[in-house]
């Protein structure tokens, strides 16, 4: 009987404990943060993770999607001359564009940083325009500028006795053109990130460096760059991913031509998967970006966390 009499009390105590632990959990910042992020997590799971696994599944099927072929599609790709051309072009495109975007962004950020605060907002706004316009739209304008027969650039150059330059008709000029447009679109992103980082560098460090007799270059090398390293790394990683996975600029400007010399993974995957109705092979091409970007991400993020721990 005593047991029976005690049981409701114990149960009540347990319920109260549970309630208080739930209450505590709900009061914890991390729980609230998790709950607030849950819709986004679900959205990502639906729109990113599911398609990613579906792409993996597709990549293991044969052309008519009726048979499991394992890594057969990847094996097939390794034997294709065009695939290696695409790998080469993707690397050239992404690395060159990211380097130039970073350098230009860094230089422009310094210029803007040195503009007096009153006029700075106007410059910042204007310099962000290429990044704010939808790339598909601005690339159409570039397409007109580079048009093989009616190029505005060639028309202008002709006044100086230069050209005509086959902007999109020659493999090397075409590569130059797509990279140039990518730099034009992406440099403002670097500029704004670097500008924010520059503004957060304590002025005392520059004063101390000046007292020590550091020149302009030494101030950049020993003060600015170390303080911006994390931002540089994160921005570079982000841009590398976006540039590697670029589609619109190349698709609109050259569609991968001439002779496949400007194809990057996304455009070639589209050509094969959608235009050529070989969805499994197209999925395999697009998945090929994953290991390359994963390696880059691991190296850069490891470097960032190492420095974070040192700090």
């Amino acid at each position, binding site marked *: 009987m005593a047991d029976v009499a005690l049981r409701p009390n114990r149960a009540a105590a347990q319920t109260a404990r549970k309630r208080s632990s739930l209450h505590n959990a709900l009061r914890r910042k991390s729980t609230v943060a998790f709950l607030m992020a849950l819709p986004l997590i679900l959205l990502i799971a639906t729109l990113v993770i599911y398609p990613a696994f579906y792409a993996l599944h597709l990549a293991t099927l044969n052309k*008519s999607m009726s048979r499991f072929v394992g890594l057969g599609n990847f094996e097939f790709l390794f034997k294709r001359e065009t695939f290696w051309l695409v790998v080469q072009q993707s690397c050239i495109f992404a690395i060159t564009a990211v380097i130039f975007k970073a350098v230009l962004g860094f230089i422009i950020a310094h210029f803007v940083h040195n503009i007096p605060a009153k006029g700075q907002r106007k410059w910042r706004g204007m310099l962000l325009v290429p990044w704010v316009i939808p790339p598909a739209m601005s690339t159409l304008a570039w397409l007109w500028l580079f048009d093989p*027969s009616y190029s505005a650039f060639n028309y202008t150059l002709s006044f100086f006795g230069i050209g005509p330059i086959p902007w999109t008709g020659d493999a090397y000029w075409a590569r130059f053109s797509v990279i140039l447009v990518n730099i034009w679109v992406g440099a403002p992103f670097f500029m704004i990130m670097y500008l924010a980082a520059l503004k957060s560098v304590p002025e005392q460090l520059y004063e101390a460096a000046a007292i020590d007799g550091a020149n302009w270059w030494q101030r950049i090398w020993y003060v600015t760059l170390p303080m911006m390293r994390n931002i540089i790394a994160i921005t570079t990683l982000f841009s590398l991913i976006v540039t590697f996975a670029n589609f619109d600029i190349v698709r609109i400007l050259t569609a991968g031509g001439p002779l496949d010399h400007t194809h990057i993974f996304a455009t070639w995957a*589209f050509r094969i998967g959608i*235009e050529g*109705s070989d*969805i499994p092979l197209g999925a395999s091409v697009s998945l090929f970006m994953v290991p390359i970007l994963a390696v880059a991400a691991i190296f850069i993020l490891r470097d960032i966390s190492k420095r974070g721990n040192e700090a």
Partner: protein
Amino acid sequence: MSRRKLSRRQFVAATALSSAALITAPYVRGAHAAGKLSIGFWDHWVPGANKASTDIVNAWAEKEKVEVQIDYIPSQGNKNLLTIAAEAQAKSGHDILAMPTWWPHAQAELLEPMNDVMEGLIKQNGEPNGTVKYLGQSKGKWLAVPASVGSQIKGPCSRIDLMKQHAGIDVKALYPAGAPPKADSWTLETFLKAAEACQKGGVPFGIGLGETSDNVDTAGAIFQSFGAALVDEKGNLTVKTDAVRQALEFYKKLISFLPPDAGAWDDSSNNKWLVSGRGALIMNPPSAWAVAKRDAPQVAEQCWTHGFPAGPKGRYAPYLSYFWGTWSFSKNKEAAKSVLRALSQADAIEKMCVASGGYDLPCYEKLTTLKVWQEEGPPKGTLYHYPNPHNHQTLSIAAAPAPPKIAQQIYTQATLTKMCLRYSKGEAMEKVLAWAEGECEGFMRS
């Protein structure tokens, strides 16, 4: 209260009368008694052309009491191809979907057979051309119904004045309006000489060597004129043949007379070339002429659409067909077949051809002499030979006669124009052929 007894004879008579009244009474149905139908049509280039399709479908829907939803899907940015791929993956979507050239074969396993529809249409409209049979049939099964909307021949559109002035060729005399062609002298040899003369005259032929369909179509027709195919109908490689070598030699000569940036041309480049007045000939359906009529009337007045030059193995012209397909998972297949029959009646086809200014081209043999092509102008008769009314050229598509699933890859990857470009840039013939053979081997994977 009087009670009337119903005799057996009276009961039988009353029942028969009631039944007769029910049968003969008007068949009253609700507004959408026959269900719903969703259609994904190709969004036409020509302004106002979509209205003709809408009107025909609405008239049919009104009569059949079907609720119809029409989406016009543009081919700009390959939106239509993405829709086809997405619906095939999702096994859900429109009941009827417009599919360009290769897509009935690409989706063959997921399409409802249309033999019952096609049998009736062939009886009414005559046989479809060979290219439509090649693209629309598989193992005796019609995969889709050929659509007049969007179907086209990409034949030469020449400038009457410039061809006369620089090449000494009277295209109107070769292809007189209202009469069969007198084009025996219009051969690839003449074509090459004319290309050279026009290039020297500062108005080169506007033929691209890019990777889009206009470029590939022309290369396909020229290759076929030499009897050159990369893969035969049985799926055997035929890249390393004399015919292919001859076609490449011809193209190398032709390229030297084309605009220097032809390797970067897309489908809009030749249109712009004609409308700007910089060239003497392009290979296109009448859309470029129609734009010229609007933007540069003085150019349009000098345009003449005509037949392809003949090669050693015949006279070929690129025909690109659109189809209307119904998914096997469609929810209203009977209604879909019924509206496709309505859209394929001769009068409906004529309405759509007129609305598109003569651009649309039915594939049936009885429908290549509609008034629209005889009357359109200026100059009057400019479109007379566009639908190939005298069958003086074989309609074909680049990469045929290879099995369509292989041909689609050759076509999409622009293997033909790439071969021409490589060879013209100085790559050795055998190296070009070896490269193309490797590509085609890859396209054969199942």
